[in-house]
C-alpha cells in the first residue's frame, strides 16, 4: 500500500516489473487528483471517468517514456489527462471498448443536475475550461500543472521535457492569454444574463 508520495518511487519501480498491486497502489494514490482535473477539463462525470481510465491505461502503455518528477508520476498523469480531455474522441478511441465495459453506479447524476445545484461554480468552471481549450495543448498542460496542481514552473518543465527558462516564458504568456480569455468569456456571460433579465 502506498500511503504517501515517499513510497511512490518504490511502487513505480515495482509496477514497471509487472507488479499489478504496485500499479494499483499508484492508481489509489493519484486517482482522485486525476479525476478532479478531468472534471475541471470536461465538467461531465462520465467523460471525466473515461479520461481518468484512459490516463491510467496510458500510464501503463507508455510506461517506458513516462517522466517522473521528484519521484512522482502525477505531473505526467496531469499532462496526459489534459491532452486526452482536449480531444476526447481521439484520445479515448484506443480504450473505448474496454472503458465502455466497466460497470458504473446507477445513481450518477447528470451534468445538468449538478449545474442546477452549483450554477455559479459551474459558470466559472466553464469559463476556465473554455479559456484552457483556447490555449495551445502544451500551454494548457503548463497552466494545469502550475495553477491548479501547484507544481513549480521548474517541475512542470521537467514533466513537459522543456527547459526551465522556456517554461517560465511560456507560462507568463499563457497566463496573460488565459486571463484575457476568461475576462472576455465573463463579459459575454454578463451580457447574456443582462439580456435575459431585461426581457
Amino acid at each position, binding site marked *: 500500500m502506498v500511503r504517501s508520495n515517499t513510497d511512490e518511487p518504490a511502487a513505480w519501480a515495482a509496477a514497471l516489473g509487472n507488479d499489478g498491486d504496485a500499479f494499483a497502489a499508484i*492508481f489509489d494514490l493519484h486517482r482522485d487528483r486525476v479525476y478532479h482535473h478531468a472534471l475541471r477539463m470536461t465538467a461531465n462525470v462520465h467523460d471525466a471517468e473515461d479520461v481518468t*481510465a484512459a490516463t*491510467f491505461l496510458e500510464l501503463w502503455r507508455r510506461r517506458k517514456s513516462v517522466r517522473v518528477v521528484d519521484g512522482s508520476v502525477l505531473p505526467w498523469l496531469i499532462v496526459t489527462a489534459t491532452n486526452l480531455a482536449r480531444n476526447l474522441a481521439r484520445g479515448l478511441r484506443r480504450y473505448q471498448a474496454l472503458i465502455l465495459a466497466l460497470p458504473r453506479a446507477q445513481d*450518477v447524476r447528470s451534468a445538468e443536475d449538478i449545474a442546477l445545484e452549483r450554477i455559479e461554480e459551474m459558470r466559472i468552471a466553464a469559463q476556465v475550461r473554455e479559456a484552457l481549450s483556447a490555449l495551445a*495543448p502544451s500551454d494548457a498542460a503548463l497552466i494545469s500543472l502550475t495553477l491548479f496542481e501547484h507544481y513549480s514552473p521548474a517541475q512542470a518543465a521537467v514533466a513537459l521535457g522543456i527547459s526551465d527558462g522556456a517554461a517560465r516564458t511560456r507560462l507568463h504568456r499563457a497566463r496573460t492569454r488565459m486571463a484575457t480569455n476568461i475576462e472576455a468569456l465573463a463579459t459575454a456571460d454578463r451580457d447574456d444574463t443582462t439580456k435575459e433579465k431585461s426581457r
Partner: protein
Amino acid sequence: MSTTELDPVFAAALRETLVATVEDTPRVRRRWRWRLGPGIFAGLTLVAGGVALAAGVFSPPGAPLDTPLGVAVTATHTGSATIDLGPRPAGATDVSLTLTCLTPGTFDFPDGSSTRCNTVDLSQPPITRTSSEVVPLSPGIDTVTIDTSANASWTLQALYVNRVTTPWGINANGKTYGVTNQNGTPDLIAVVIDQGKTQGYVEASELNCASGGDPKSIAQALAWSAQNRHISIPVYESNGTTVIGTFVIGGATGPNIPTVPLSSLSLHC
C-alpha cells in the same frame, strides 16, 4: 453520490482492469507469438495490407522448427495438478503446452510464466483464452505441473516435440534476415503482405521508427500519439535492396486515415 469523488463501482472495476493489464502484459506477448508465430514485433499494431508471419506457412531463417513426437495428452483439472506426459520419445527436446482456462484464475506454467483469465476473457471464444508455451524438457522428468488456486479449472494439452532453431540468413551486404528469436532481432525482419501472397523483409530500424521509435520526452510521445495516420515502409527481398511491396503500420481507426511513407517524414529515429 458526490460528483467530486470517483464513482466507487467504476473505480473498483478500473482498478481490477489495471491490475490485470499490468500482470497480463507478458501473457499477451506470449499469446501473440503463439497465434501469429515468430517475426512479430511486440507492441506493434498491424493493419490490413500486412499481416505478421505465421509459423509453418512460410518458414524463414531463424524460426524454431517443432516436429511433433507421439500423441498429445489432454487433461482437465480444478486446482493445481501434475500431468504425466507418458514415456519420452527419442529426440524429444521440449514439450508443447496449450492451456485453456475454464474459470477465472491465474495459472502458473513450469517455466515460471503465468497466464491469467478474468470474467471478460471467459466471455470470449476459447482461442482468446488459450495460452501456449513450449517448455524445454528437464532430464528424467516426464510430468508437467500447473499451479493455480483450488477453485480454478483448466484444460491442458501436452505434446512432446523436437525443437530446432534455424539460423538467420546473411545477405551479400552482411545483413542478417529472418524472424525474431531467442538470439534477438535480425537486421531484416520477415513479413507477409498482400493477404499472404508476398513474403519479404522489412528493415528492423525502419519498423522501429515507423512504430514510434523511442520517444525522448513526454512532448514527443504526446505528439506521436496525436498523429492520426498510418505509416508505410518498404518490403524488400532478402538482399535488403530490391523493393517488392509496402508494409503499413498504425493503430489509427476511423474513416479516411492517411497512409504516409516513412521516407516522406523527417523523423529522427
